[in-house]
């Protein structure tokens, strides 16, 4: 399992809708990803890491999250929903994430959003986020295969 874990790419999954979060998580794990999930930006940074089930970890506090992330020697990718629980949204997450000393600036972010607005796409693009999917219009298969392609798995 450790060996598996070491070979596995880890993805931070941030999605507010529980059924969707579960579906994505299952699908990602089926595709051999280690998934760390959160439903809000706050939680993504602050809630520490809790075991959801065998392969999943929830971040509970930012220190812990960052520690965890650093322990993992960085995560490989982030699956980010735009609309999240709480006041902050995906853009806020990217801002905070990228602000952290540029340490994770190279981690690819995949935005999977309900919103197909061009303005939003542009906002993400300005922050260096190139992967943008409109949620209902893409099969999980397609998104995951693009992640794999990007990570060259």
């Amino acid at each position: 399992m450790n060996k598996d874990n070491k070979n596995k790419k880890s993805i931070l999954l941030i999605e507010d809708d529980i059924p969707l979060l579960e579906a994505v998580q299952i699908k990602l794990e089926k595709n051999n990803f280690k998934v760390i999930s959160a439903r809000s930006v706050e939680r993504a940074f602050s809630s520490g890491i809790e075991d959801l089930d065998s392969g999943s970890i929830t971040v509970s506090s930012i220190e812990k999250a960052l520690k965890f992330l650093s322990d993992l020697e960085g995560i490989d990718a982030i699956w980010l929903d735009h609309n999240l629980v709480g006041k902050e949204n995906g853009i806020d997450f990217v801002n905070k994430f990228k602000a952290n000393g540029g340490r994770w600036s190279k981690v690819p972010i995949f935005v999977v959003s309900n919103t197909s607005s061009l303005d939003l796409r542009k906002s993400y693009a300005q922050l260096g986020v190139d992967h943008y999917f409109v949620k209902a219009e893409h099969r999980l298969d397609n998104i995951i295969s693009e992640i794999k392609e990007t990570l060259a798995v």
Partner: protein
Amino acid sequence: MKINIKIILPIIALLCIILAAFGYLLFYLKYEEQIIDNQTEKFQQLNLMSSELTKEQETIEYNVLVYRFNLDKNVLSAIDQSDINIAQITDKIYPYINSETGRKLVSNYIEARKNIENVRGDLLKAIASKKEDDLNQKYAIWSAQTQAIRQTIIDLDNYNLTVFNLILNSFNSIYNKLFQVILILIVIVVVSIFVLFYYLKYTISNPIIKLSIFSDEIANKNFTNISEHINPENLNNTDEIDRLFQDFLTMSQKLKTAYDELEQNVKERTQALTIRTFELEESQKATMNILEDLNMERKSLMETKALDEAVLASIGEGLAVVDKFGAITYINDAFELITGWKRDEVLGKILVDILPSQAEDGTPIPNENRFISRILSGENPENDFVNTVYYLKKDGTRFPIQSLVKRITLNGELIGAVKTFTDATKIKDIDQAKTEFVSLAAHQLRTPLSAIGWYSEMLLSGDAGELNELQKKYLQQIYDGNARMVNMVKSFLNVSRIELGTMTLDLELVDLRKLVDDVAEEQEQKIEQKKINLSLNYQRDLPAIVIDPKRIRMVIENLLSNAIKYTEERGKVEITISSGQENKNILFKISDTGFGIPENAKPKIFGKLFRAENAVEKATEGTGLGLYIVKSIINESMGQIWFESLENKGTTFFVSLPIDPNNS
């Protein structure tokens, strides 16, 4: 002017007679004048001489008296001188005395003179001798002799009076002669006038009276009398009156012919007139009937007009009627209310000047591009369902409008247009709220749709264990239904974006062929399912084009999926891409052999939520938003889209896009 000899001759004769009479009178007068002159001179001379003789006689008598009283011998020489004077006077008298009586009188005088000279000599001697008795005797004798002398002189004077009477007689005879001549002349003139009058009467007046009678006859249409009274052979061609008769005869004959013809004509015309009058009466009756009908028609027209005007005035939409030049001929109350213009201010003005138009972003719409201008210039512009148009009120504020323009034609000729419009501010606000709501709702829908989609995807891919065929089939239905729903949401959102004006273009240099290939590949499954024969024809050296690939992709997706959807199985769909004129445009053409667009649906085909009846019948799936979105995107991209379609034959959509919208 030619003068009739018949008139001239008698006048000349009369003038000759008068001249002769005057000539005679003049001769006579000259003769009498000489006589009178002679007699007058004689009378004067005799008169003078007799008075001189008297004077000399008195002088002598005086001097004799003087000598008697003072015996002055000088007086005697004066008496001698008087004697000499008397002798001279007596000598002069003779030539003037040519009658016997006269001469006798003169010789009596001379005799008496001789006697008295002797007597006077004796007297003078007596005076000188101073013998008183002798002297008185002698003086008495001398006085008697003196008396005798004086008597002879008086006789001479009396004789002279007879001479004067002779002169008077001459004058009398002249007066008599003059009176006679004048009397004769008067008689001659009167007689001549009578003669001339009767002469003229017979030569001129009578024929004229005759002519007048004949003309009366002609006037009474009696032509036979004339030819009975005038024999043309007796007429002299040189005589004016005769010629007049000749002419009159000819004229009367011609007149007779003309009159006969006229009478015939009048008969015919009268007959025709009677018929015509009858016809006229008939048509008058008919006209009266028509007029009555017209009046009734007019009344009902007035009623209709009043009704129309009341209707037009009462409708809530602004309404303007313009003539073919776009000048306002009518506006209703709502027009005044909405725009702030009063009827008097705008009548006759050009509508597009009164209501300037703007696009959403405030750019003015040129008058010639205005819908109504295009209608009036004979174009048949399509309704623009996409862009909101604003009008400026009188006070310069703007308001969004919804409007409709209808042409007015008379006998197929365009004579004007009617424009109705509403202030769409509220509608637009409601629309905006609705659009925002749809946008929000659609976003919210995406989450559950994603859940359905992804979970069914996972089930189908065996993530939860193998499914049997039936389960797979049903699940596939769920998955497909969900996919359709997702598409619908996508369309709704696109429409919302269009209507909220948040659809922006992200222009890139794109190879359109690649885009079409991608879309075709995406829809391969559907194409294969319906066994559609899809052919793609690209111009080889097609230039790249500056477009928003995502939007244009949407256009191609829509057009291709429509072509597939509305074409029977095994039908044909053909896409052709070529560059247009001067390499400024690219023309995308997609034609199918499908159901076609019915005529009545053609004008509305780009409208929102519109689906043609046959489309609804043949394919239940569809939102009626596709072509609306397509049209909006093409408009936004500064391109054009149009189509040709025949029902049950097929449809061809043409899309023309500028190669570089920034340079076109």
